């Protein structure tokens, strides 16, 4: 709104002040009113300077405009008075200021300033009275301030540019007069006209000098303001850096750079404009200079200060937008594997560039490697330089995106693998930190700079089984290092304060399974680590975190396996809070003791890697409550049967009792089926009337208990032995699904078992066939069962609690063929040890020809004892091995050690995509 309009809308008290202002001034309010817009548009301040030619021009324009106004007025009554007033004002003004138009300019400038002051005060008062306006956009005050300052910077810059143009005019005028009139050498001392000219010239030079100083002061001021702004932006940027670092560790954080890019670009633009302005001023000095020229001394200083500002701004504006990361482990950046692709991206936040100048970015790895013995050296394969892409849309920026980089270790002197032993450094491979440095040759508006930025330190591994400990290093570094480039961090790694560590650990769960750790969880972990109640000062040394551990594995290894388990099998349950997870035994008893029989909770095993177990409470008629827990399930078991299904069908066998499910209520008191209903897998209950070619079947888990076994007290927990059993339940064959052993004919499940308390049993169950195992291990056997049901169950459980191996065959109704990939496709089955290697029935290649037409196959019992894993594996060509290829935490097929690979040879669903594995991968 125009100022005069605003003034008129002032509340009466303030309006009174305006009236007062105009009663004492030479400018009548009539004139102010009728020429309001024009008056406000002029630069009176400028004109008020002594010797300003501008003032005279403005004064005469005003008189002329008043004349026009008079002419345009009609003959009406009201107009008559107005006309009179205007005419009188015109005459008065002319009389008063004809000689000193500067005074008039000064007067108007002051009046306008006075008006503004009154307006400000009125507004301030109004704001005090009015309730604070509701904030529409909840911007942070810092954001608002930056926006405001940017806007202010722009307007001040425009003012400076105006002042500069004025200076140009003045200089041109002076230059012209100087060349016209100044004639040194001749004696003009008697020529009064010449003397007058020289005097005028002197006055012009004075005003030029004044204007120059004015412009310099303005530039000084502008530079000072920009320093604060740059400071603000750098603070925001370092906050972003922190956010990025935290988000690398899995914390939820906003790492968008768009707003910062906008700000940096705006300030950069302004500073470059200022640079141009400075150069313009410099050119003026080239044309006209004089003794004590302020530009002579001040300009170089200003230029240096501005260049420093720009350099500082641009240097900080070059950032690594994406830290190096392999695409197949997106949640664990900063861990790179040799020969694996990774990408990284840098961005220049000042989006200004010269279209004619090709900007090239380069990357170097470990430009200044630490001088530690045995520090590995790497080469970046693929090109290490790239032209910076310039997108036109504002969302894009000056980005150098390196997409398909791979690393290769430099081998010194042709030595092979063995030579590493001799120059092995003090640091483990996973504690060795590497850096990639980006450099960019930037040129804009005649300013040439070499910009540089570095990634966060990363760990280079050569094998996937190092991933876990490499990630531990990344966590530790980013959590604790005060210097983001410290490659020597692990020579003396500091201890982690518990509150910090707790936060980072929680992020791991948050990013893996979308639910962080609760206070109770953290409390349990702290007790596990520190033994007692953690104080805020408790700190965990690096070795205790990643290396030593009482149970034979480190704290981190334990936690990371739980993370992997969660990710692979329990994500949803964890996310929905059904897994209590981290509960110490003591706490567990405390929780369950007061609950009714059958209340159970799910927690992670503390004694083994990546295990989850259920503990339930039983209140015997007399004596203290008993707590029971099954041997923890690992990913091997969970791959074949999901935890909710295990819980649903879990059976406890006790002599003289009908098998029953002891798991009734999920802690605190949710009925089992209510809690787990949404997670149960679909059952295909057949319709009895329909004629089916196959019987339906499903897997359940059963534990057994010896009759003589004592009910355990709180002190000794019974680990119920548990076996894998198969049950044939119903007729049904709509799905070519076959889990476990398919039994023919017999509808009644018969469970056979042998057991020795406290030990895991190996049981292979089939109808009519029994393989009791009084001696452990039991020689594996193969069973060929009736027509229509082609199935083999191999339950190979070693006494070491090794994973159960199960091979399933799929059978399609009506066709006596083995699925999925033709006759011979039965995968290898591996027991816990090489000696217990088990093979599917047709693994020897004997079966396929028979399968097509034979309904009943003879029992086969290959001499497995003679087969060694190493011998067998190369023959695995084209077999179906079922692994989840999408699983980033699962070891990559080629890196998997053999037993682990075997554990994942499970299938629970025929829709599962088979993965082809080359035999050569195992070599």
């Amino acid at each position, binding site marked *: 709104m125009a100022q005069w309009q605003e003034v008129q809308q002032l509340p009466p008290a303030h309006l009174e*002040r305006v009236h*007062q*202002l105009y009663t*004492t*001034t*030479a400018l009548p309010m009539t004139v102010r009113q009728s020429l309001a817009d024009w008056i406000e548009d002029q630069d009176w*301040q400028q004109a*008020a300077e002594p010797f300003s030619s501008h003032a005279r021009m403005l004064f005469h324009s005003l008189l002329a405009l008043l004349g026009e106004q008079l002419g345009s007025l009609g003959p009406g009554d009201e107009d008559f008075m107005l006309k009179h007033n205007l005419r009188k004002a015109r005459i008065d003004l002319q009389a008063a200021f004809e000689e000193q138009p500067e005074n008039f300019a*000064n*007067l108007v*400038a*002051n*009046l306008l*300033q*006075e008006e503004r*002051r009154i307006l400000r005060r009125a507004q301030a008062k109004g704001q005090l009275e009015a309730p604070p306006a509701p904030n529409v956009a909840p911007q942070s005050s810092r954001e608002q*301030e930056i926006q405001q300052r940017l806007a202010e910077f722009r307007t001040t810059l425009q003012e400076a540019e105006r002042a500069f143009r004025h200076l140009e005019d003045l200089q041109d005028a002076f230059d012209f007069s100087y060349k016209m009139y100044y004639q040194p050498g001749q004696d003009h001392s008697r020529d009064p006209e010449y003397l007058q000219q020289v005097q005028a010239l002197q006055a012009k030079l004075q005003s030029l000098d*004044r204007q120059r*100083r*004015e412009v*310099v*002061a*303005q530039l*000084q*001021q502008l*530079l*000072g*303001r920009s*320093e*604060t702004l740059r*400071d*603000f932006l750098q603070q925001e940027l370092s906050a972003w850096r922190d956010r990025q670092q935290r988000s690398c560790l899995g914390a939820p954080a906003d790492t968008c750079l768009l707003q910062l890019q906008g700000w940096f670009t705006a300030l950069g633009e302004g500073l470059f404009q200022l640079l141009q302005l400075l150069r313009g001023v410099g050119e003026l000095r080239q044309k006209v200079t004089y003794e*004590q020229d*302020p530009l002579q*001394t*001040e300009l*170089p*200083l200003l230029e*240096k*200060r501005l260049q*420093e*500002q720009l350099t*500082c701004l641009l240097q900080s504006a070059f950032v690594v937008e994406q830290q190096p990361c392999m695409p197949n482990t997106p949640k664990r950046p900063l861990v790179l594997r040799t020969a694996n692709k990774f990408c990284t991206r840098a961005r220049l936040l000042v989006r200004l560039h010269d279209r004619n100048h090709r900007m090239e970015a380069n990357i170097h790895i470990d430009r200044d490697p630490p001088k530690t013995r045995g520090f590995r050296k790497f080469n970046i394969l693929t090109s290490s330089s790239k032209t910076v892409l310039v997108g036109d849309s504002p969302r894009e920026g000056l980005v150098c995106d390196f997409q398909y980089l791979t690393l290769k270790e430099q081998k010194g002197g042709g030595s092979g693998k063995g030579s590493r032993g001799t120059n092995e450094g003090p640091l483990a491979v996973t504690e060795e930190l590497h850096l990639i440095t980006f450099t960019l040759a930037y040129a804009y508006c005649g300013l040439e700079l070499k910009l540089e930025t570095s990634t966060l330190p990363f760990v280079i591994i050569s094998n996937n089984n190092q991933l876990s400990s490499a990630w531990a290093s990344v966590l530790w570094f980013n959590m604790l290092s005060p210097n983001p480039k410290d490659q020597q961090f692990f020579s003396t790694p500091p201890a982690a304060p518990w509150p910090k560590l707790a936060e980072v650990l929680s992020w791991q769960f948050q990013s893996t399974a979308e639910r962080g750790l609760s206070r109770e969880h953290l409390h349990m972990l702290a007790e596990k680590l520190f033994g007692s109640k953690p104080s805020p000062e408790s700190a965990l040394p690096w070795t205790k975190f990643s290396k030593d551990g009482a149970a034979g594995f480190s704290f981190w290894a334990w936690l990371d396996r739980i993370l992997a388990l969660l990710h692979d099998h329990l994500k949803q349950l964890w996310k929905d809070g059904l897994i209590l997870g981290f509960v110490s035994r003591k706490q567990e008893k405390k929780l369950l003791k007061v609950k009714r029989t059958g209340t159970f909770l799910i927690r992670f095993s503390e004694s083994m890697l990546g295990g989850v177990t259920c503990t339930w409470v039983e209140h015997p008629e007399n004596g203290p409550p008993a707590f029971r827990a099954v041997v923890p399930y690992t990913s091997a078991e969970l791959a074949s049967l999901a935890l909710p299904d295990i819980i649903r069908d879990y059976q406890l066998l006790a002599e003289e009792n009908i098998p029953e499910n002891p798991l009734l209520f999920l802690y605190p008191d949710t009925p089992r089926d209510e809690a787990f209903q949404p997670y149960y897998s679909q059952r295909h209950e057949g319709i009895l009337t329909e004629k089916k070619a196959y019987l339906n079947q499903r897997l359940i888990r059963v534990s057994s208990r010896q009759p003589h076994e004592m009910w355990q007290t709180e002190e000794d927990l019974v680990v119920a032995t548990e076996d894998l059993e198969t049950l044939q339940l119903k007729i049904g064959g709509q799905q070519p699904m076959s889990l476990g052993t398919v039994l023919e004919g017999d509808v009644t499940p018969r469970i056979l078992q042998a057991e020795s308390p406290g030990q895991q049993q190996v049981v292979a169950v089939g109808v009519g066939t029994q393989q009791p195992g009084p001696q452990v291990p039991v020689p594996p056997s193969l069973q060929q069962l009736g027509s229509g049901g082609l199935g083999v169950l191999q339950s190979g459980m070693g006494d070491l609690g090794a994973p159960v191996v199960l091979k399933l065959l799929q059978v399609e109704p009506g066709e006596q063929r083995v699925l999925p990939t033709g006759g011979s496709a039965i995968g290898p089955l591996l027991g816990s040890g090489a000696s217990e290697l088990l093979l599917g029935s047709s693994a020897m290649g004997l079966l396929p020809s028979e399968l097509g037409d034979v309904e009943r196959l003879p029992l086969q019992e290959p001499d497995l004892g003679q087969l060694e894993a190493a011998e067998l594996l190369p023959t695995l060509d084209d077999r179906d091995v079922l692994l989840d290829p999408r699983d980033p935490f699962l070891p990559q097929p080629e890196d998997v050690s053999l037993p682990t690979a075997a554990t994942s040879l499970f299938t629970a669903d025929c829709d599962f995509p088979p993965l082809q594995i080359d035999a050569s991968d195992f070599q």
Partner: protein
Amino acid sequence: MGQRGGHQESWKKLEISPSEVMKAEEENSKEENKELKSKDCKLLSVFGAADLRNGAVGLYNIGQTCCLNSLLQVFFMNIHFTKILRRIIVPVRATQKMKNVPYQMLLLLEQMQCGKQKAVSPRELAICLVAHRVKLFVQYDAAQLFLTIWNLLKKQLKNPELVGKLSDLYTVCVQEHLACQTCSSETKRNSSMLTLPVPLLDSCSHKLKTLEECLQCFFHPEELTGQNMCFCEHCGKKTPFLQSVKLVHLPQTLTIHLKRFCFGRSAYIHKLSDCLPFPQDLDFNAVLTEQQCEAYDSEKDTWQYELFAVVAHSGSISSGHYCAYIRSLTECKWYCFNDSIVNQVSWDDVKCTYGHSDLSWGQTAYLLFYMKKHPLRSLI
């Protein structure tokens, strides 16, 4: 006309926001006005003052006077100083007037508060200073120039009462101790200083982190051993001494001089542009230990300061620019005085003068002026 309009305006303001200080000031200026009127018809409109008016007025740079301008602004924005300035005895003769620094300063102050321009030229004052060998077109060290101007003021004030007030307003009293480490005889000497020249580096050339640390370092006792040993009268030989400075009295306006220009290993002088944060509120009782003070508790109670002004330098040792950040005592708002350009700024802008180790040309605070928070208590 415009002048008269503004004139009334300042009266109005006084009525609207009367604070005790302002009222006192108002009355003072009234009285002074009469006094002055009778003596000098030039000072017709000496009421209202730049420091009471809402607007801050710039000073034109008339030949590398940025240093002078900054210091003048610091003087003029200090109402305690202007109170003294207004009571000066105006010299009778024109030549005396020309050479009288306080009088010229007063004239300039009046020019600033009466004129409605955004800036005025300190020409007469500059000429007056030239007469006292403060040349134009020379880059001065602000601390040095401050001392020069202050001494000129003190010398020319004539009125002993005013001289006393000026000294009270600015001088720090300390007690220097020299203790012989062998016989523990001690010599004390009271002395006063206009500024506290605090080092930015400690005795081992380590950078100090905050202003508080710098002050602690300044008051830290120093052992004089080896070559620095002094002759002890009691022992009759050169002995190691412990030299220390104890704080006796702090003035209303405390000036701290950050020794940013320092000698390197060679004779070459360089500027330290490292970051040195200074607080807005400074409590000397929290900074200094009991042993470092030699004052009564009633005196110590008044050692609560808040930042009033910062004279900042940008550039290098040989060429540079000064500007002043001043917190208006009446409005409690920060202004940046950059010669003729005056801007209202925020504390964040002032914080920018902490310095930055990467920016050797940027702004760095050079002189800090702290103001006592409770001026009245010191009178009791």
